[in-house]
């Protein structure tokens, strides 16, 4: 007896769309049986999977507690909300969307402050002269504390802010902020600038596994099937299939293609008739094709593989090695 593998997926907005697109690329159609406002979903392609639609923050919290097995959420939330994140969750895979940086930003008028070192000095002087610590408005209390500690900054106070953080210096609620930004334009519009070495975290959406969830044998098998699809999609996504047939194709030529263009020969070969199938990173395809023609190929065909299923599944193996037996 064991329950389904539960995957937390963001319940609204672009994050949800992107997460759905990610699963679709990996051959999994997330469906909400009772329509768009349903907070439970299923994956018809894989048995024993249940989707829980939650906010990105709830997903991070549920991963930490082991209430869900896997989840799609931002690395910023994982690092902020989960104490000891390394021990409690595994970042399986960056998903290439939801990019944003958590940064330290100060008023542009502080033309004397460019580095964290400057900030340390200013914070120190501020405390000494005013008898008050400089205030940092943020919702990233833990990330801020860790980062400031690494930079030896002690003369500050955190003012928790749950929205419109970038306005805090202008309203006098704080002297500086730690916030998430994609382009920096909101910061600039509020008269703020990012400190040169003040990027705390370059975050993106991640597929995250909980190490605290109940990982029964069935749950592991389900996760394996699921991560197999993710890994196959990733391999396919990062490779082009290059095919040709010509007499001069031999092992030596394959070795050269591997060495020069990062190609692999997933099916072995070439065959005795010179039939050759290679996988090659997209940006090297043209060079590889030219090379093959120079070696004697009449025709070189290039296609995008839908999936590449390999015996080895690095994503699943990383998870299992962290879960132990």
């Amino acid at each position, binding site marked *: 007896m064991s329950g389904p593998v539960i995957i937390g997926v963001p319940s609204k907005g672009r994050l949800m769309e992107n997460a759905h697109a990610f699963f679709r690329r990996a051959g999994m159609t997330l469906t909400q049986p009772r329509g768009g406002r349903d907070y439970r979903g299923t994956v018809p392609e894989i048995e024993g999977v249940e989707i829980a639609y939650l906010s990105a923050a709830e997903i991070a919290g549920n991963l930490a507690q082991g209430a869900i097995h896997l989840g799609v959420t931002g690395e910023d939330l994982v690092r902020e909300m989960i104490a000891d994140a390394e021990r409690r969750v595994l970042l399986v895979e960056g998903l290439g969307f939801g990019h944003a940086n958590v940064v330290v930003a100060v008023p542009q008028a502080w*033309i*004397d402050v460019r580095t964290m070192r400057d900030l340390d000095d200013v914070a120190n*002087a501020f405390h000494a002269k005013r008898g008050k610590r400089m205030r940092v408005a943020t919702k990233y209390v833990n990330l801020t504390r860790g980062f400031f500690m690494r930079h030896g900054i002690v003369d500050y106070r955190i003012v928790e802010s749950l929205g419109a953080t970038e306005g805090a210096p202008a309203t006098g609620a*704080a002297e500086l902020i730690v916030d998430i930004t994609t382009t920096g334009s909101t910061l600039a519009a509020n008269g703020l600038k990012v400190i040169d070495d003040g990027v705390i975290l370059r975050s993106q959406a991640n597929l995250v596994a909980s190490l605290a969830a109940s990982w029964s044998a069935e749950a592991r098998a389900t996760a394996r099937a699921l991560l197999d699809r993710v890994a196959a999609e990733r391999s396919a996504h990062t490779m082009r299939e290059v095919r040709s047939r010509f007499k001069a194709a031999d092992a030596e030529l394959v070795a050269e293609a591997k060495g020069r263009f990062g190609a692999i020969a997933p099916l072995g070969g070439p065959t005795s008739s010179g039939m050759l199938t290679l996988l090659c990173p997209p940006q090297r395809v043209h060079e590889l094709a030219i090379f093959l023609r120079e070696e004697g190929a009449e025709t070189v065909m290039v296609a995008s593989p839908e999936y590449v299923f390999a015996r080895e599944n690095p994503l699943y193996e990383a998870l299992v090695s962290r879960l132990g037996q």
Partner: protein
Amino acid sequence: MDAENRIARARDGRAEALVELYERAGYVRVEPAILQPADIFLELSGEELRRRLYLTSDASGRELCLRPDLTIPTCRAHIEKNAPVPATYCYLGPVFRDRGGGAGEYAQAGIESLGRDDREAADAECLSLALESAKHFGVAKPAIRMGDVGLFSALVAALDLPPAWQRRLLKDFNRTGTLAADLATLKQTPAAPVQAGVLAALQGSDPQAARAFVADLLSIAGISTVGGRTVGEIAERFLEQASLGAASGLGAEATAVLERYLSIEGDPDEALAALRKLAKDAKLELAATLDRFEQRTGFIAAGGADVSAIRFATAFGRALDYYSGMVFELYDPKDRVKWPLIAGGRYDRLMSLLGAPSPVPAVGFAAWITELEEAGGAR
């Protein structure tokens, strides 16, 4: 169950007897509120304390915490009552700290002595009462570690470093552990800062001219000033850096003195001899400070303590901002208990920071009951 209850009672009895000992020595027992405004603790101890605090809030959104120690609550109560100094207090009760596991609630006893101007005698009395407390629990010869934050301040002042460096060194000394990095930076000739042009333009300016210059810079760049620091403060820092830049890195001499200072340790008499020699070699005006150090050692000896058993280290500090002079920690001599059994020191700045109308010299210590029992073999 019965046995456990008996042990619990005996334990309480022992801690109670300790406070009675303090009362007999003239300390007035107080019981400050358990629920305290969180703001004061965070402002005084910094954000690092936050993860150790048990926080809550009242209906108006004011942040409150369960008291993490009894020093600040005792001092606050004293100020609120407008009580006269000198005043001496003692206490026994729970304090609450999140140590990442464990009960989170710990019994603490201790004393605070407020307003005595004879600092050296008060320091010595504080230490000897701490030693007596350890003995009370059967730890006759605890390992004694001692340092002196005030001595380091005096040295930094005597070295005549730029104010920014003085502040920085004192801050990092209070945190302990990162001074090596500071010294490495001190030795280097700083790379020309990006604002080198600004600094060169400002060299030799008076503060008013500098302020006008910075205001001009900002208005040319179309930057409006928002919150926090004033144009004057920004100008002032530029001036400070301009003077630092002129020195092109700090002399190897000053660095060598700091390094030599921080390597001094031994019993207080040995340390004093080394300190006097350092002051003489480096021609530093530290005589008055070192005389007081010697006086304090004399009082400690007169109190019956074995001075040669004290390990004094110039680099030893306690990671709390408000200590200002002698600091000490007593440990289990058999090293079975890793935490300090008793810890304390002089904190002359705290009362002003808490709102006392005039400076109040203060010294005290806190004793961890469970650790003392363990070290004394009661458990």
